C-alpha cells in the first residue's frame, strides 16, 4: 500500500513538472488575469481565458490566471501580480474596479484593466465593449425590411448591457422608419428555451416580422419559433448564423478574446494611456456578420445602406446611441 502511494506521489510530481510550461526569457511580457468564476464555464470567464491564451500565442507573453470570488481576493490577486512585476493585469468584470484602483496606487509599474466599468487612474483603465454598434445596424435592417413595421426583442434578464443593445436596435430601426415599433419581452432567465419560444411566438402573433434576442442559451427557443413560423431573426454575441441558417439573417458578434489581445498589444507597444477604452467596430472587437444564404433576401439598397453606416461607424464619423449604465 505504502509503495503504491509513493509511486502515485512520484507520478503526480513528474506529471506536474513535465506539465509546467517552460520558463520564458525574463524579457517576455507578463500578463495576469483575474476571473470571477471558473474559466471552464464556456461563457463569460472562458472567453477571457481564451483571450489570455491568444495573448500568449501572439505576443509570446508569460501568462497566469486566478479565480477570485470576493473583493478581498480581487485585491490579493491584483497585488500578487503587482508584487511579481507583471506588466498587465486584467480583472474580468466591473466589480474589479475598486481593487484595481487600490492595487494601481501600490504598484505603479503594472497596468490594471477591468472589463467594463468607469474607473480611470494613471495605470488603471476599463475596456468597454460596444455591441450596440452592431445591434443598431440590425435595427436598420429590420426597419427597412419589415413589412409590418414591427420587430420584437426577447431578453433574458433586464441587465443594463442588454437593455442598451435593445435601445440601439430600436434607435436603428426608427432611424429609417420613425413609426417603427419594437416590442420587448423579458423571460426572467437565460436557460429556459421553452419560455423564450413562447415569448417569441407571442411577439410573432402581435405582428412582429423580425426578432432579435439577448437570451444567451435560451435563444435556441427563439430560433425554433422563428423556424416554425418562417420569421426572420438575428443572432447575438456569437456568430449564431449556423444555428438556424434558414431564418437568421445576420449576427451581432462580440470578439472578447480580440479585445484582450488589443489591450495587451497597446501595453506591449507602450501605447497605453489612461482612459475608458471603448472597443467596438474600429478595433474589430464588434462586427456584423451576414448569413450569406439569406443576404440575398435583403434588398440591395438596404445592404448598401448598412454597409455605408458600418463604414461610418468604423471611421468614427457616426456615433451609435447607448443606454445609461
Amino acid at each position, binding site marked *: 500500500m505504502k509503495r503504491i502511494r509513493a509511486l502515485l506521489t512520484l507520478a503526480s510530481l513528474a506529471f506536474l513538472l513535465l506539465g509546467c510550461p517552460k520558463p520564458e526569457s525574463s524579457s517576455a511580457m507578463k500578463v495576469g488575469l483575474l476571473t470571477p468564476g471558473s474559466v471552464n464555464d464556456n461563457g463569460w470567464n472562458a472567453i477571457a481565458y481564451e483571450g489570455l491564451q491568444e495573448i500568449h500565442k501572439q505576443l509570446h507573453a508569460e501568462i497566469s490566471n486566478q479565480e477570485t470570488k470576493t473583493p478581498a481576493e480581487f485585491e490579493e490577486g491584483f497585488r500578487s501580480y503587482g508584487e511579481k512585476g507583471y506588466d498587465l493585469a486584467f480583472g474580468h468584470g466591473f466589480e474589479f474596479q475598486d481593487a484595481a484602483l487600490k492595487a494601481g496606487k501600490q504598484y505603479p509599474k503594472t497596468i490594471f484593466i477591468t472589463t467594463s466599468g468607469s474607473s480611470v487612474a494613471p495605470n488603471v483603465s476599463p475596456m468597454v465593449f460596444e455591441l450596440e454598434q452592431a445591434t443598431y445596424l440590425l435595427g436598420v435592417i429590420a426597419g427597412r425590411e419589415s413589412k409590418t413595421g414591427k420587430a420584437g426583442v426577447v431578453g433574458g434578464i433586464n441587465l443594463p448591457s442588454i437593455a442598451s443593445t435593445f435601445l440601439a436596435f430600436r434607435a436603428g430601426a426608427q432611424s429609417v422608419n420613425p413609426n417603427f415599433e419594437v416590442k420587448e419581452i423579458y423571460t426572467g432567465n437565460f436557460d429556459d428555451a*421553452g419560455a423564450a419560444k413562447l415569448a417569441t411566438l407571442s411577439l410573432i402573433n402581435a405582428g412582429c416580422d423580425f426578432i432579435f434576442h439577448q437570451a444567451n442559451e435560451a435563444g435556441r427557443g427563439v430560433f425554433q419559433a422563428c423556424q416554425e413560423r418562417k420569421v426572420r431573426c438575428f443572432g447575438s454575441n456569437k456568430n449564431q448564423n449556423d444555428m438556424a441558417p434558414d431564418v437568421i439573417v445576420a449576427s451581432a458578434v462580440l470578439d472578447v478574446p480580440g479585445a484582450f489581445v488589443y489591450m495587451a498589444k497597446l501595453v506591449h507597444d507602450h501605447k497605453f494611456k489612461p482612459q475608458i477604452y471603448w472597443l467596438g467596430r474600429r478595433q474589430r472587437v464588434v462586427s456584423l456578420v451576414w448569413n450569406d444564404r439569406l443576404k440575398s433576401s435583403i434588398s440591395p439598397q438596404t445592404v448598401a445602406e448598412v454597409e455605408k453606416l458600418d463604414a461610418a461607424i468604423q471611421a468614427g464619423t457616426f456615433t451609435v446611441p447607448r443606454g445609461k449604465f
Partner: protein
Amino acid sequence: MTSQLLAAIPLAIVASTPLLLAVLGELVVERAGMINLGIEGMMLTAAMTAVVAAQWTHSITIGFLAGIAGAAAIGALFGLFAIRFAVDQIVTGTAIVLLAQGLTGVVYRQLQQSAIFLQPVPRFDTDVVVPLAWIVIPIVLAFLLWRTRFGLRLRACGELPAAVTAVGASVAMHRWIALAIESVLTGIAGAYLALALSSGFAENMTSGRGFIALSIVIFGRWKLKGALLGTAVFGIAAAAQYSLQASGRGIPFHLLLAMPYVVTLLILCGIAGRVRAPESLGR
C-alpha cells in the same frame, strides 16, 4: 388585445405540454407513496439524451426513445435508493437533481463546440405529443388508476402499504412500475422540450419545471382533474403575460413574470375540497 390573449391559449397548451407530462408522471408516483424531487433531473437528462440521439440518427422518434431511456436511467437510480435501500426520498431526489444538472452540464460544456450541439436538431413536423399528453394519457391513467385492480393496489401503496402486503402483492413492484410510468412521461417531456420547444439542448433548460410540477400535483390535490386544470391555468397565464409584455402597456415585467404563479395558486386554492395527501407519501 382580447384576440391576442385568445391567440395565446393554443400557444400555452403547446408550451406547457412538458409540464403536464411531468405533472402526470409525478401524480402516479405520489399516488404510489413516493415523492420524487428528482423529476427535474430526469427531464433534464432526457432533454440531453434526446438531442444526442436525434443528432446521431437524424430521427425524431429515436430522439424521443432516447429521452425515455435517459429519464429511466435517472429514475432507476432514484428507485434504487428510495425503494430498494429505503433512503429518505427528499434527500435522494435533491441529490439526483444536482447530479443530473452537473452531469448534463459537464457533457454539454465538453461537447459544446461539436456538431451535436451546434447544428439545429431534426425538424419536428407532426406533433402527436400534444394530443397524447392532454387527452390520451389522462384518459389511460384515469382508467388504469381508478378502474383496475392494479390501480387500486398502486394507490394502496400510497395509503396503506401494509394492506398491499397483506393480500400478497409487492409494494416495491408497484412502486417500480409507477416509477417506470413516470420515466416514460418525463422522458417524453424532456425530449419535447429540447426537440420541439427548443432547437437543441441548453444548460439547465428545464429551469424548475420539475418543481413546478410537484407543486401542481399538490395544489391539484393528487387528482387528474386538478393536474390538468392547474397546468392549463399556469400555462395560459404564462402565455398571457408574454402577450401583455408584448403589448407594451408599461406594466413592470417582473410583476408579469410572477403572474402565472399567483394565478395558479389562487385558482387551485379557491377550489373547494378536502386536502388530503396519500397517507404513506414519502415513507
